[in-house]
């Protein structure tokens, strides 16, 4: 199968209200957070982007909205790649979870939630994964100091384990 052209992806993105650009050879779609789920469903069903490769975020503290949530998709059918970016604000950093479409979304969204405090609506399991219960703050935010110390976790008795 042939990879969809940039124009084809652009048409799909435009239909969902997103803008498309080419950055160093990769197609990058930017769109608002409420259309993400609808567009990704189209990308998966129509354009065969069947592998959710990565979910992360970028923090721009001086900008409103503050965060980019960045998704990377790959196709095991036509080997194309696409990057999807959506902007969410600091007060309600919420975006729809992709775990209804991709099983891999669960863990990667958990990590993104750990690190940036992005809330993935619909992901019921946002327990800490690389951090631990009781960790205060979101370490990859730019306003989290690198040398910040965390409160000590007290000893627990064994029957609670």
């Amino acid at each position, binding site marked *: 199968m042939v990879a969809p052209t940039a124009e084809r992806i652009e048409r799909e993105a435009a239909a969902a209200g997103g803008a498309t650009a080419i950055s160093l050879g990769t197609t990058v779609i930017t769109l608002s957070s409420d259309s993400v789920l609808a567009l990704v469903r189209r990308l998966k069903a129509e354009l065969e982007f069947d592998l959710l490769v990565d979910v992360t975020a970028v923090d721009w503290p001086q900008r409103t909205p503050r965060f980019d949530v960045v998704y990377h998709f790959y196709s095991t059918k036509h080997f194309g790649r696409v990057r999807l970016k959506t902007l969410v604000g600091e007060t309600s950093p919420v975006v729809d979870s992709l775990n209804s479409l991709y*099983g*891999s979304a669960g863990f990667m969204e958990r*990590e993104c939630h750990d690190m940036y405090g992005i809330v993935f609506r619909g992901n019921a399991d946002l327990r800490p*994964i690389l951090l631990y*219960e009781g960790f205060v703050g979101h370490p*990859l935010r730019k306003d989290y100091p690198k040398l910040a110390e965390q409160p000590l976790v*007290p000893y*627990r*008795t064994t029957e*609670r384990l």
Partner: protein
Amino acid sequence: MTPPFDAGLPNPVRPAFERGVRDDAVIVNIGPSHPATHGTIQVIAMLDGEKVQRVDVHCGYLHRGFEKECEDHTWHNLIPYVDRLNYCSGLINDFAYCEAVETLMGVEITPRCRYLRTLLSEYSRIADHLTCIAASLMELGAMTAFLYMVMIRDYIYEHLADLTGARVTYSYGRIGGLARDLPEGWLARLAEILDKYEVFVGRIHGLMDRNRIFIDRTRNVGVISTADAIDRGFTGPILRSTGAPRDLRKDAPYLAYGELDFDVPVGINGDNYDRYYVRMREMDESVYMIRQLMEMLPAGSLNVDDRHCTLPPKELVYTEIESLINHFKLIMDGPVVPAGEVYTAHEAPNGELGFYLVSTGGGMPYKVHVRSPSFVHMGGVNRMLEGYQLADIIPTFGSVNMIGGECDR
């Protein structure tokens, strides 16, 4: 003194389930410090007798703030740090990271560097697969197989130490090139080691392939289908063991892979035996590729002649002011990487290793994110553990080859 205890505080690990569907289900905790989970990882399993009903995998015990730390160092300074992601094949991490930075800078590496990076990537892949197979065979009791394979791996480590100065953490990649060229006689020794590899891996085939005990423990254990594997984001040998010939070296050739002749071995069933066999066959393909690359390796310079990223020769640094300033700026401020973002993926031994870099135009990265195959695999490994015996957790987990360094970052 009694330690402080506050019953109101949450447990640092909260399992996804508290009680079983049946009253007699037992919840057992395996790890994070367990000799058979080679890697600091915790598996919380709900058992019905010996059968695993549900599994909740927790990682993060080796989390050391890699991505946060990266934002505080120059682009070059990160190279020793990316080595420690997948510490079984540090060179592949180096090269993937360097290629990502080079893409942002628009630097094209020299042909010799390109072929040498390909050769060393394949060499690292052999070391990584040897580690994985040796450890998982040892966990099933095959001590001889372990010793044979680790012996070959040790030849490789010593040989790489001749080239890079370190056995495991090489710090050998450079933006725009490599740290140093091959020492004299290195390729001759490489040919010797590959011959030894064939002898000993041949013995492993003889010991394991038709071994009743080994087959009973691995055949139809930890089965995963292609559709499930893709859904869970699995790449690398796990995806290939299900029968899907997906390999970035073939599908989206980078470095010199487009010019090499090689096969992509696949499995049939997606079980532990297939993962063992796919890794064994991949090592053979790597040997075949290395032999081609030894013939193809061109002469010429190793590093690009670009003062934006490559350090000037030492004798010039000591004799002329421009080179001295150039050296100083590259070390103190870091190479200036144009603003932009890039995602570069390489086929690491465990699957797709991706670097997502964001630059704002300075000498330090604004963001570094690693898409590590092990982390994604840990998100879906419960599919391969549930429904099998408690004892099957060990071989299945071994065949996935979780590497704590890249999983927890």
